């Protein structure tokens, strides 16, 4: 068994386990901490997929910025663990059935890639490097890139307007 296989199973099982904690934890703080762990394990998976740029962004933006925002809100609202009325049992059963059906559907769709060998030329293996992604981002994808910067500006202004008590 090569190191890549071992690392994949290690990161994969840890990702799914911490995602289960996110969904199941009683305390929102526990969910947030498990979510940080999920992001770190996913960054490891991204490195295995040769997506180095996105792995670094994942840790910087998700585990750094977004999770700090979540933690601030948890502490600001001083949320306790009790969800006064949890979802009715029927909702839980239905939710489980929908999730199981969707995973079965996705599994059957993804089966067609089961024996397709991945790309292997050096240029294709390099597609996730900072140089390659940056070159694409500032040429072919320049307009969406600028649109996203505008979206982030609108989100900042919108967040201030929505969260402030009195403007």
């Amino acid at each position, binding site marked *: 068994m090569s190191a890549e296989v071992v690392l994949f199973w290690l990161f994969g099982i840890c990702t799914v386990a911490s995602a289960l904690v996110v969904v199941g934890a009683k305390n929102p703080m526990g969910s947030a901490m498990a979510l940080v762990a999920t992001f770190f394990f996913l960054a490891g998976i991204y490195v295995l997929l040769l997506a180095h740029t*996105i792995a670094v962004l994942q840790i910087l933006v998700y585990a750094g910025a977004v999770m700090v925002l979540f933690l601030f809100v948890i502490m600001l609202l001083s949320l306790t663990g009790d969800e006064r009325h949890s979802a009715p049992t029927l909702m839980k059963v239905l939710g489980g059935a929908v999730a199981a059906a*969707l995973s079965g559907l996705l599994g059957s769709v993804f089966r067609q890639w089961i*024996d397709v060998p991945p790309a292997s030329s050096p240029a294709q293996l390099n*597609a996730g490097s900072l140089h390659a*992604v940056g070159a694409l981002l500032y040429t072919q994808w320049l307009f969406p890139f600028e649109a996203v910067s505008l979206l982030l500006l609108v989100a900042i202004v919108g967040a201030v307007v*929505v969260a402030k008590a009195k403007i």
Partner: protein
Amino acid sequence: MVPVHHYLMLAAVLFCLGLFGVLVRRSALVVFMCVELMLNAANLTFLAFARQYGDGAGHVSAFFVIAVAAAEASIGLALLIAVFRSRGSINISDVKTLRH
């Protein structure tokens, strides 16, 4: 080497876990965290196919998904604070004015 199919299955499992959380949990904050989980599963699918076909467009799309997720988190959490201020709770069972 690990076949790309494994990564796709991992993404499917992650997405369905997030979906289950969104449907079942009542705390709006945890629902947001589960949405982040689903967005990450979508990212993993983008990157798995980028690896499969050696195409940089998958990486660029994942970059945009991260940016949109950051915008979503900031607006969503601001909404949570506004809801908490007006109702004293962020339980989504309490937010039902539009239902009547």
